[in-house]
């Protein structure tokens, strides 16, 4: 950073089985917020030529391939923060349009930055698991709805 501080903008890992083989591809946490001189700022990285998400996915899959000799079969993760909010709105819109919930959750995941970044890399098949829902007032006009709050997505390469 300009102030000489090193900040990690992304971190990720892939779980291994007892034999050291990957059980899935890498999952990532990415956050562009950094603290500079007492204020929080979102940074852009000059020279990348791509989004931080794409950069992190490139690095993670590259490291995965170097370690295991093949690209990951899946790119899993949980939707939180902005991704979750986008998913919630898209999911409820699909439900309101009488889309089957199983289809709605996939369509909603496809609309998130998480899903989009992985689909652009060829991981176009999204498996979505809604782990938890909560009753919340949401929408316009606002009303009490069952809203997914814990959402896991596994992006799988198209066969």
């Amino acid at each position, binding site marked *: 950073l300009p102030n000489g501080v090193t900040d990690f903008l992304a971190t990720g890992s892939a779980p291994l089985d007892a034999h050291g083989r990957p059980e899935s591809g890498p999952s990532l946490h990415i*956050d562009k*917020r950094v603290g500079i001189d007492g204020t929080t700022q979102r940074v852009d990285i000059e020279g990348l030529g791509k989004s931080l998400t794409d950069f992190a996915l490139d690095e993670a899959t590259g490291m995965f391939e170097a370690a295991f000799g093949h690209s990951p079969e899946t790119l899993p993760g949980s939707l939180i923060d902005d991704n979750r909010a986008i998913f919630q709105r898209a999911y409820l819109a699909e439900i309101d349009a009488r889309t089957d919930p199983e289809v709605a959750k996939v369509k909603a995941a496809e609309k998130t930055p998480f899903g989009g970044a992985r689909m652009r890399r060829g991981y176009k098949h999204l498996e979505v698991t809604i782990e938890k829902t909560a*009753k919340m*007032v949401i929408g316009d006009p606002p009303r009490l709805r069952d809203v997914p709050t814990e959402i896991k997505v596994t992006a799988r390469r198209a066969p």
Partner: protein
Amino acid sequence: MSEIDPKHRQQIERWLGRPLTVDELRPAESLEALADDQLDVVAAIRPKNLVAPVLYLNFLVPSAPMDVLTPFIDNIASVVAARKYPTSNRAQPSGDDSSSGARSTQSHDWPNLPLFERYAGRALSPIEKQPANSLEELSPAHLAITSMLARQERTVAFLYLRRIVPSAAAGACDDLVKRLATSSSA
């Protein structure tokens, strides 16, 4: 005992705003075995940065898989609440159980609760609904949710603070909301 990567530690401490203590750096067997003060660290830094709590918990509980770690960090306010107000004696201030997703039977005490939860994107945890005597006594969970609200809509954060600290002056609440909105804006 292994040492935490100094750069990881610095990043955690920057977001925490103070050095980590020896106890806060003591590895645990599992996420459930984390000490209260370690949970408080996660609760304090989670609203400000997502990577820092992952680095912290990766060091404390290296065996915790990411698919467990992520919801744990995401729900840290509820984790802290469950630790401090176990179900067996949950005669807590707000009297409801948001962690189950159930609507409070006492929501008339919280006329703006749906508004707060709409902006939070989830149900508020019991600890987030616990009143405080002063702004200085706000817990990390209070500050975390206030920051989250302030980043989106300062008026909502202001209303939340006024509900949590009824005795606080409106001007003081407004100042705090502005500071949190600014410090957390991204």
